[in-house]
């Protein structure tokens, strides 16, 4: 193995180094994303529990800082900010004394809250999907880079065979074996990238449906209490 790589041409070496870099970055992203998603799973479950148990939105807001990894926190904060903005400017909040049924604050527009949740939802999905696209790039590019290295290696191997004027297997084989390492390295980088790209995007989809579900729940509560 050492001998094969040591006598490789500069182009083959460059191909191998590029593939190594791709693999390094891809695995780093995989590790970071897996850790982050595990955190997201845990904190989302906690947040849902708090959200359903709390009597007031302000109670929920107090735990948001500690559960920041969950995408639902982002949606809640956005929806709560919109609610606050609307209630602060409503006439009921300004004039009447709070606590009485007549002076209960009302929303001007529930659709605006919905839009705020939608904005937050897409922002959160973007955040979850950040860097995952690099895995797709790695998966599709690295086999080609490896193939390029192999083709180049075989080309130079045949050139040297022609120069030596011998088709003996001991002349042909090492060059081709050296060239094939590039394809192997390309596949080595690509296969985990494909697997984890599919894995991570599927999980993002699951989070997206959870977020849609949460948006509807938030709207329901808002409508029940503030209209």
């Amino acid at each position, binding site marked *: *193995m*050492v001998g094969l*790589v040591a006598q490789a041409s500069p182009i083959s070496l460059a191909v191998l180094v590029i593939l*190594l870099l791709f*693999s*390094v*970055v891809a*695995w*780093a*992203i995989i*590790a*970071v*994303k897996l*850790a*982050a998603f595990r955190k997201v799973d845990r904190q989302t479950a906690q947040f849902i529990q708090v959200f359903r148990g709390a009597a007031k939105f302000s109670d929920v807001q107090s735990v948001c800082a500690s559960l*920041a990894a969950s995408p639902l926190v*982002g949606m809640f*904060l*956005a929806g709560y*900010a*919109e609610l*606050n*903005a609307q209630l602060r400017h409503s006439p009921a909040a300004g004039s009447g004394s709070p606590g009485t049924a007549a002076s209960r604050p009302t929303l001007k527009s529930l659709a605006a809250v919905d839009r*705020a949740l939608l*904005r*937050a939802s897409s*922002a*959160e999905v*973007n*955040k979850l999907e*950040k*860097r995952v696209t690099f895995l797709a790039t790695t998966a599709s590019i690295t086999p080609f880079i490896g193939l390029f290295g192999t083709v180049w290696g075989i080309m130079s191997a045949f050139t040297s065979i022609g120069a030596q004027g011998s088709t003996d297997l001991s002349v042909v084989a090492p060059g081709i074996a050296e060239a094939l390492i590039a394809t192997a390295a390309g596949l080595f980088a690509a296969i985990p990238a494909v697997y984890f790209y599919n894995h991570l995007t599927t999980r993002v989809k699951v989070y997206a449906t959870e977020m849609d579900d949460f948006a509807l729940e938030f709207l329901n509560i808002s409508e029940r209490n503030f209209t």
Partner: protein
Amino acid sequence: MDAVSAVLRQRAREAEPLGKVLGWSLLVHVGLTVLLAVVPASWLGARLAEEPAVVMQISLGGAVGPRDGGLSTLGGRPVQQVQPVETKKAIEAVRPPAAKAPEMVERTRAAPKKQTATAKVEAKDPRSRTPTKGAEVQAGSAVAQTAGRGQGFGLSAGGGGTGGYLDVANFCCPDYLATMVDLITRHWSSKQGADGTTLMKFVIERDGRLTNIQVERSSGTPAFDYYSQRALSLTRQLPPLPAAYTGERLTVHLNFDYVR
């Protein structure tokens, strides 16, 4: 800027840092690469070119045949036997019996045939040999039951070979093999009080040293295996491989036959 945008911007700023993990990933990759380079090639499935692949097997004692069943490699000699005379029989078509001529009619006599001139010329030809036919002793190819028994290995002209074989397609020098067998049998005797066969495998180096001696197929009796191994170990040194043989080493599979 409204409150919602502020929240979104704040959220977008919190991202997972990649730098530290990138370092770890690089470390692991470099480690794996070094491991791949250090690991012996055989672990990765490469075959080391220590022994040549078996292209063809050459038996030391005739073709590798069935077990000899009483015929020994040395005992199986060609014997002479009577060759049966070939007789040609003309095939006659089935015909109805010829009609008999009536008695009264006088028999017609065929005119005597004149001898042709060519027959005389043939008889006079002094160079022609008289064709012979009949019982004649010729060399046969049958194997006779001589109740003799060879040493278990050896070079013989006929019989079912049970000797051994080489791992090369064309070994040049049978003389060398004869010498090898001769030298090995100096440290060995087939009469050990029980029957059995041990197939040994060993390598003759270029300089004639015996190396890599191992039991390839055990006889089932450890003592025999050990005795065969001992014979090879005691032999230790053979003449250098003949110059006509170009290989670096010669792998030999040799049967050690034991008899009561």
